[in-house]
């Protein structure tokens, strides 16, 4: 039972890192970025290559982070320079990265059992991944409080405002995409080291799982204004992995996993959409133009 909880937490915290990356694009930038499906295994490939060359595993994580940011840069350039739609830009990068990942690894799977990884220490792996997830969250929280972070938020909210402020919105989008994909690649590097191998297919569905974590976290903490969004995402990722682990334990066929994930996302999105409609109405009634337009009939 203990090992069950530990492995769930391990998986949960690693995916919390991915989910935080997905949160940047999907929620803050309002950019459905599919390239994460490619940058997650990119991080794993780069880490595997580095480890096999005898590079320090922490440095390997750094390289994975950089590689991921380049992936995000590619998506951003396709979108802002070549004016390809956001969804398609991500998909193109994802597809392209499949071959690049194969090139980096030289084969479709590299076992890492014989190399020194970040988990070769006395510290419990769960603590290591928990620290990673928490650090990512804290750094992201701090970033969103900076001037650049404000603008990142504003681009997803109202591009025209950002332009009116004299800022190149394309630059801001690029920053967001690079950061998001760098975080996803970092998670891929951790994942590969934790499971003991890097595999070309390990990225499939990463975006959807990240998304599932984001919306699961948001729907659990819907009523709360105190809990930060990033905290919701972090807990959402752990909850998602817990739900999946319980389902597998209860006899779910592992082959059905991705279908179940898709169904969960659909279910949560559908309920959210209906609930949000209700929320909107209550806001209208509450605030309105009470102060300025108190005596007009239209309010």
């Amino acid at each position, binding site marked *: 039972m203990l090992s069950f909880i530990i492995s769930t937490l391990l998986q949960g915290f690693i995916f919390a890192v991915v989910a935080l990356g997905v949160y940047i694009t999907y929620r803050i930038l309002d950019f459905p970025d599919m390239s994460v499906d490619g940058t997650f295994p990119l991080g794993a490939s780069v880490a595997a290559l580095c480890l096999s060359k005898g590079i320090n595993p922490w440095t390997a994580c750094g390289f994975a982070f950089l590689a991921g940011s380049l992936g995000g840069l590619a998506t951003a350039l396709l979108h802002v320079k070549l004016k390809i739609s956001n969804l398609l830009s991500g998909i193109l990068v994802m597809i392209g990265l499949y071959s690049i990942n194969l090139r980096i690894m030289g084969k479709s799977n590299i076992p890492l059992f014989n190399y020194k990884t970040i988990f070769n220490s006395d510290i419990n792996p769960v603590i290591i991944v928990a620290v990673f997830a928490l650090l990512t969250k804290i750094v992201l929280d701090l*970033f969103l*409080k*900076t*001037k*650049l*972070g*404000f*603008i990142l*938020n*504003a681009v997803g*909210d*109202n591009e*025209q*405002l*950002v*332009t*009116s*402020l*004299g*800022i*190149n*919105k394309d630059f801001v989008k690029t920053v967001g995409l690079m950061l998001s994909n760098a975080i996803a690649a970092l998670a891929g590097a951790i994942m590969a080291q934790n499971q003991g191998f890097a595999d070309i297919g390990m990225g499939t569905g990463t975006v959807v799982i990240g998304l599932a974590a984001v919306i699961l976290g948001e729907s659990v903490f819907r009523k709360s204004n105190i809990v930060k969004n990033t905290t919701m995402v972090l807990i959402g990722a752990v909850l998602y992995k817990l739900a999946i682990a319980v389902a597998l334990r209860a006899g779910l066929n592992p082959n059905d996993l991705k279908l179940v994930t898709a169904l969960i996302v659909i279910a949560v999105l559908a309920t959210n959409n209906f609930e949000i409609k209700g929320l909107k109405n209550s*806001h209208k009634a*509450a*605030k*309105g*133009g*009470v*102060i*300025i*337009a108190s*005596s*007009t009939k*239209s*309010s």
Partner: protein
Amino acid sequence: MLSLLQVQNLHKTFNSNTVNENTVFNNFNLTVNTGDFITIIGSNGAGKSTLLNIISGMIKPDEGSIVLKDKDLSKLPEYKCTKYIGRVFQDPSMGTSPSMTILENMSMAYNKGKKFDLTFGINKKNISYFKELLSSIGLGLEDKLSTKVKLLSGGQKQSLALLIAVMSKPQLLLLDEHTAALDPKTSEKVNALTEAIVNKEKITTLMVTHNLTHAIKMGNRLIMMHHGNLIFDISGEEKKKLTIEKLLQKFEEIKEDDLLSDRALFS
């Protein structure tokens, strides 16, 4: 008087070489003096909004120059033009970031023209200044600094958008029917606020409006546009004597001209 903005030899055609080809400007010229507060009127399709869009860089002219002080804006990307220009749109949600708080919105606006780097977005020292600005518009927003803007009413949003647009003291303020989406009473309040701010900060302003009373009452100069041409330009003492009847008469004259040309076309 010093000229601030010169629009020269402006040409703009939409959908050129198609059936829907639409020439909005064919050699349009306008000089705006420093300190002018110009109200712009004209029937739909006259090119009023297109003119503002071209000045602010949102739309690029086919030909001609837009010179603000010494800089030609006609070739610059929009975000470089907007460095010198403040703008309020008809849609109240265009001027603010809805999911962010009033304080966050104002902090961003206050930082316009400076670097958006990795220093903290909110500087506590500015809060009392923001509160002062907000209390000057008398909507009680100074006590709602941490309220998200999406929870404000249209009038509150538009007043905030106006504050945000002028906060960095732009050289030119563009108002594109900025009270048209508001109810009459709120519209009056926002217009009064507009006048107060423009007069206090002495910002050169172009205001597009369909409300003839506002067009006459506000500003020191009034221009009327029709089919991409300046057909009426009046300022100073003469403008003060202007009445709605006279303006309506002008509109009638245009209509007759249009009818005549239609008749010529179909005869």
